[in-house]
């Protein structure tokens, strides 16, 4: 695989008071292939933004290696081929959208005004590029941010919470733009909390917790292990008994069968058996594992393994521990 990003045992430790260190990125091994849309997920404070800053050379790693587009992270020549859209970006508000584009273009020595306008049109700011950015809505500011990030026709885009805090329409617009980047063969590295977006647009994801990767891989592999629910009428007890098997949940009542099986099970042969016995198949509902389930599972398991607590707020505002260790203590 041709890699756009690669980190090896990447560590970032901040010095705390009294000489103690806080490790924000802990032995991070990451591989992002060229042309992929890669989702980088994790709870708040997991080390996502710190990792991006290291990859951009904005901060230095304490140890380990980080390579971006074949060069060392922070290499100025590599910066000509990538772009970054930070979380909740601020742009010089006195400028108009077009002036902002001119400013960022000048950092690449690009003097192509038509290109600036074309990119602004691409992000649906064709009618607003002469308005000051101070008059832009949050979604428009995010779109102008995306437009500036495309000025150098980057091979790699780092997007930090690109849809955070946007209304549903702006949200969809940004998501569609990211999907266009895939069609153009760009590599997109998205750090986000919007799991439904990530699930919809990313090829691969990595989940990070307390600076460490807790799950990484292709979405279809990570989300494998879903279930399929088959409902059929006119089923007799013999058929019910024949369908009984480990990893299956079979229920029969008044001739109605509800069968819950793993999606790896042979669904077709089960359906064939039911049809042969003149049973009427009412529904086949695949219940896919969601990224949200995987996220909670992976982060929760990591917290449990390391004896950390992750609270859930009750109506009274009291934190309720959800890790096993705490539950055991409560018992």
């Amino acid at each position, binding site marked *: 695989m041709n890699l756009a990003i690669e980190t090896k045992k990447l560590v970032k430790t901040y010095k705390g008071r009294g000489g103690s260190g806080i490790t924000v990125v802990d032995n991070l091994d990451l591989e992002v292939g060229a042309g992929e849309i890669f989702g980088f997920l994790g709870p708040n404070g997991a080390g996502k933004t710190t990792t991006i800053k290291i990859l951009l050379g*904005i901060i230095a790693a304490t140890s380990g290696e980080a390579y971006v587009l074949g060069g060392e992270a922070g290499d100025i020549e590599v910066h000509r081929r990538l772009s970054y859209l930070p979380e909740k*970006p601020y742009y010089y508000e*006195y400028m108009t959208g077009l002036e902002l584009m001119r400013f960022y273009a000048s*950092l690449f020595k690009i003097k192509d005004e038509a290109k600036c306008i074309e990119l602004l049109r691409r992000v649906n700011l064709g009618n607003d590029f002469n308005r000051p950015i101070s008059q832009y809505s949050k979604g428009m500011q995010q779109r102008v941010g995306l437009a500036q990030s495309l000025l*150098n026709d980057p091979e790699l885009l780092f997007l930090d919470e690109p849809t955070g805090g946007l209304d549903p329409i702006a949200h969809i617009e940004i998501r569609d733009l990211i999907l266009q980047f895939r069609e153009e063969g760009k590599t997109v590295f998205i750090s986000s909390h919007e799991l439904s977006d990530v699930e919809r647009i990313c090829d691969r994801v990595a989940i990070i917790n307390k600076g460490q990767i807790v799950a990484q891989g292709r979405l279809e592999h990570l989300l494998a292990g879903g279930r399929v629910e088959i409902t059929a009428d006119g089923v007799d007890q013999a058929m019910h008994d024949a369908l009984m098997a480990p990893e299956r949940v079979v229920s029969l009542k008044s001739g109605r069968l509800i069968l819950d099986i793993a999606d790896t099970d042979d669904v077709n042969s089960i359906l064939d058996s039911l049809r042969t016995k003149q049973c009427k198949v009412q529904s086949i509902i695949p219940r896919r594992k969601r990224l949200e389930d995987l996220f909670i599972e992976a982060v929760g398991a990591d917290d449990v393994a390391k004896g950390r607590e992750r609270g859930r707020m009750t109506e009274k505002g009291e934190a309720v521990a959800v890790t096993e260790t705490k539950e055991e203590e409560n018992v």
Partner: protein
Amino acid sequence: MHAVFAIARTTIGEAIRRRVLLVILLIALLLLVVAPGMNVLTARQSQTVLTSLILGVLQLSSAVIAIVLTVYMLPNEVERRTIYTILSKPVLRWQFLLGKYLGAVGALGLMMAMMTGTMILVFALVQRGASTDLLTGLARVPIMFFVQMCLLAAVAVFFSTFVQPVVNFFLSGGVYLVGTVFGSLFSTISENQNLPMVAKIGSNLIMWLVPNFAQYNVQNSVINQGSVIVSEQVYYAQMVIYGIVYISILLLAGMLIFDRREV
């Protein structure tokens, strides 16, 4: 240098729209306009008092603008995350810092030019019949003040690479005060034979480290008609060179610190 000038232009654009700076500028312009009216309070010769007053207003306002303009410059860029989008482009940190400094100096120059224009206009209107030599002399003083303020801005930019804005405000202000007002005090201490060696070494160290802002205070040659700067052109040239060297050292040190700083 393309990136440096692009950043400088943006810094000027932003600085001239900062309300706090505009308020300071407005107060300064107002003081320059009403300054002739304060003349009635004193019995001293009106031209001397007026010259002294308006140049004082110009210098003090410029110093406040220079410090306020520069102490928040880098922290604001970090806080608003604009620095991240800029540093993720092919821009090196020294280019960013130099661009910010040049932009600050450019904005300072614009504001000082506005104050100088107002000052000369007010002076020419109030002191009808003032000689061209006097007016030219009056216009020359702010040039030296400008170099002084560029030096002060470099001090503030240097400190802004590693201290918080409030601390920087007092540090830069303190350095300016020491370099302007207390320079002679430290000079006296270092030459006094009766004082302990530690005090003398300390004074010498401060005099060596702190830029000599006082040498840019050339207003006496305009305020007191009798006082003359010997080889004026040469003196001015020397002061400009001194300023450029000091500014370069401060900016280089700032760049080295900023290059290693985590933002």
